[in-house]
């Protein structure tokens, strides 16, 4: 480094302005109208590093919630309301088939011999079905639940079949018991 460099550094040292310089700057600032912040400046401000992190976290969370809700709605379209009916099943084409199947199960031709008992058995089947259907609203009271309509229909079918089978078996057992008692009395 030459002496010329040193002399130049000495000659061009920083210089301090008058003492009231800051006050004069503030007087000028006070005279100026407040700067207008435009909408794109506000948006740009959100993209600055410290705020951008929170904006990104918020946007990602909102996106995840939206995707989750859409997926849930796609996978669970049916809704059970407080009355216990499967709302989507009514509009579902499979629903009528389900009803028919249930009807066909109900209309299973019974043997003719114990006619009065079969009539009784039919009424008991209906009673059982009514009891079964009454259980649903008790369990889902005050809540709406989204279920798969096909699964619900299959479940109803199985329950109905089990009720009919158990009722028929009970009737048959009772009929056998009656038949065994009759010969003893006749003797």
């Amino acid at each position, binding site marked *: 480094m030459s002496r010329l460099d040193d002399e130049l*550094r*000495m*000659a*061009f040292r*920083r210089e301090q*302005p008058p003492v009231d*310089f800051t006050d004069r700057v503030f007087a*000028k600032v006070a005279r100026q109208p407040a700067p207008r912040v435009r909408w794109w400046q506000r948006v740009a401000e959100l993209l600055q590093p410290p705020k951008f992190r929170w904006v990104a976290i918020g946007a990602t969370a909102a996106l995840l919630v939206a995707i989750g809700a859409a997926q849930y709605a796609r996978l669970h379209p049916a809704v059970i309301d407080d009355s216990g009916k499967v709302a989507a099943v009514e509009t579902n084409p499979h629903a009528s088939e389900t009803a028919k199947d249930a009807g066909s199960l109900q209309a299973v031709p019974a043997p003719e011999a114990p006619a009065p008992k079969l009539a009784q058995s039919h009424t008991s089947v209906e009673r059982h079905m009514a009891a079964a259907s009454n259980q649903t609203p008790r369990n889902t009271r005050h809540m709406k639940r989204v279920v798969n309509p096909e699964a619900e229909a299959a479940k109803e079918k199985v329950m109905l079949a089990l009720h009919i089978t158990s009722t028929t078996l009970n009737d048959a057992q009772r009929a056998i018991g009656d038949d065994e008692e009759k010969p003893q009395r006749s003797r």
Partner: protein
Amino acid sequence: MVGWEGTIALENQAAVALEDTLERSAQGDQLAFADIVRQHQGMVFGLACHFLRDRSLAEELSQEVFLNLHQNLRSIKSPAHLTFWLRKVTSHRCIDQARRQKVRPQVSLEDVPEPFTHPTENDLLLSELLKRVVDALPEKARMVVILRYQEDLEPAEIAKVLEMPVNTVKSHLRRSLSILRDKLSRTLGEVIL
């Protein structure tokens, strides 16, 4: 006595404090803005004063620079960016001011008066002579020299501030120093060169 670790810690503390001041200032804290003005007024006023060679004009220009800063505080990202921004705006405003002020009597290098006193006897005269020689340089070359010796910037940093190629900055510096040496050697002989 503070060791080098202590010095680094103090520097970090100062940087954090300046960052905090800048953030508060951007949020409208007038005291924080006053701190920024006080910390940088020497640099801004010095550049303007050495370039324009007129204290009242330099003061007015410096106030305009800080007013501009107040309006653009939100765009300043860090203390380093603040310093760069101030140097850049001040330099460009000075060059514009000098170009507008063409009516100002220009002193040619040949007309620079030569001091009669030996430089070792009075350094103030030497400083004045150097300033006069630099004052006679073209605007951009003059600002290159001032940024180099007042702010101690490297050619690459000057190139960024003045938005010109590094090679142009180097060539300005070489030519300016050559002129200065030539002028001073003719005036003072080989004493200081």
